[in-house]
């Protein structure tokens, strides 16, 4: 069992993971709210799959919840993927387009 100290350390480490560089508390609130929002949004998205079949939706929801706990702060990855670098945008546009075509053509 960890002491109070180590729990504090754990929380601190987790929180610091959110921001890179100099974290101010006004930036931190943004990141932490963003994280919570993302988690909620992703869970809602997973639950959308109930329109295909309800069990699939439940399984997916469980999987997503597990993945979220496992991968830690999602917000960093999200911020990285949302940079306006041309390569990244191009990559995501291609993925989107492929998904749209795949879903409509063979869905």
């Amino acid at each position: 069992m960890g002491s109070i100290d180590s729990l504090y350390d754990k929380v601190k480490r987790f929180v610091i993971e959110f921001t890179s560089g100099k974290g101010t508390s006004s930036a931190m609130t943004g990141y932490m709210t963003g994280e919570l929002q993302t988690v909620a949004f992703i869970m809602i998205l997973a639950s959308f799959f109930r329109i295909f079949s309800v069990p699939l939706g439940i399984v997916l929801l469980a999987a997503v919840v597990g993945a979220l706990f496992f991968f830690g702060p999602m917000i960093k990855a999200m911020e990285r993927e949302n940079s306006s670098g041309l390569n990244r945008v191009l990559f995501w546009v291609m993925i989107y387009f492929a998904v749209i075509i795949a879903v409509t053509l063979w869905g």
Partner: protein
Amino acid sequence: MNESISNLWSIPLFIIIPILAAILLNVLYSRKRAISVTAVVSSLALIVVSVLSPFGFHWFTGQPAVLPTGGYTYRADLLGWNLALEYYYGPLQQIAIFLASVLLLFVVLIAINSLKKNTGTYISLLFLTFMSAAIVIMVNDFYHLWIGVEIGSLIVAGVVLATGEAVSQKAALKYTFFSALSGAGLAIALALILGVTGYANISDAIIAMPLNDASLASVLYVAFGFTVLSWIYAGGLAPIHPLKADVYGSAFPHATILLQTQSKLMLVAIGLVILRLFGTLPFAKEVMLSVSVLTMMIGVVMAMLQTDFRWTLAYLIVSHSGLVTLGISLGTVQGIIGGLFQAVNDVVYMSVLLLACEGIYYFGRGTSIKTVSGIAKRAPWLAVAAIIGAFAASGVPPFNGFQSEIILIQASLNYGMPELAIVVLMVSVTTFIALFKGIYNIFLRPDDAPQAGEKQGMPVPRMLYVCLAALIFITILFGVYPQLAINFLNEAALKVVYIPWVP
């Protein structure tokens, strides 16, 4: 409502007045007085025309339509294949163009009052922004739609470049790079649709669309994909939103008002076209819905992370585009009304916020929440305006955002998707948090900077307060009497859902 008319007098004026004004302003270049007179008179003329005009069609170049039985007609209410390029001015167009021209007037006034030398080219680009928005919202022709989107993205790059900062040059470059891609994509979609139907006129193409022909199915799907791609680009939906947000963030805040109006109108116009053309294809609405939901979510989360108020607003604009498209993609009458009304409201309350941001820009010499603070003491009215704008944006009752969001929520509940309603609610709550994070830091946090005296920027132009007051008035007006706008939007929604857009 005289819809048999195919030569409505007002329609060409919406395009020609901005073109002539833009040419004149560009030639005048640095003559301030002449520029102010030209710009103000032209934008006033646009407002007057948009108010006075009845509804109807315009067949440019005066070519008639070919009747299915042979022979030609000039009556727009008969079924015929159009030889000419067709524009339509209906209630939706009226409210959209009226709002856009009012905003154009405000933006022009602010630009004249707050910018130094050589404003001619910049203001001429603002007029052209209006023109491209008007083209896209009125046009009923694929090829022309494509040109509207194309010229629109070029103009956006120009407006952004005019600030002359390195960051805006980067944003403009990236944006135009993508305009090449998605412009080509829209052109391919157009070619495919033209290939299977043979009509560039959208209403005619809808009638001729071989929707049940299995041997042409993948042509339609690929055309749909490309059209959605250009929709994503024109409106700045995910995943192109970082580029669009850069554009919004690095232009002058007052110019962003017109840029976001343009992209909202493009979203509405292209979205309705997609719905009318491909709405009955399987998965079409689902694809559009998922794009909207992702945009809302990513936009609002990214807005939370920003430390510059301009960029917060930029991402919020992106996120609220998702609200507009959500309503349109639902494809029900209520949904479309909600989407269109959201577009109208969005344009208004985002303009309030952007003007407040412009005020901060003058006062605080920047808009970063880290360096600017305590503005409320020096400009209490600015703070009030910003707070009202934030309330409206996050859907607090007496203001207009509430009215459209409630329609959207009801529409998604009626559609059988309570999740969408939750997403809408979460977006408005998060909008509130993101905005108040910025507003608290900029306006209310005590000014801890020691060099407060020298940080004093120039006084905010009085014109900005006048414009803010007018916009807040519209915000409250639509919030209290939503029927004022909804009556205009009803007809467009009914037309999309029940009949292809032909008289």
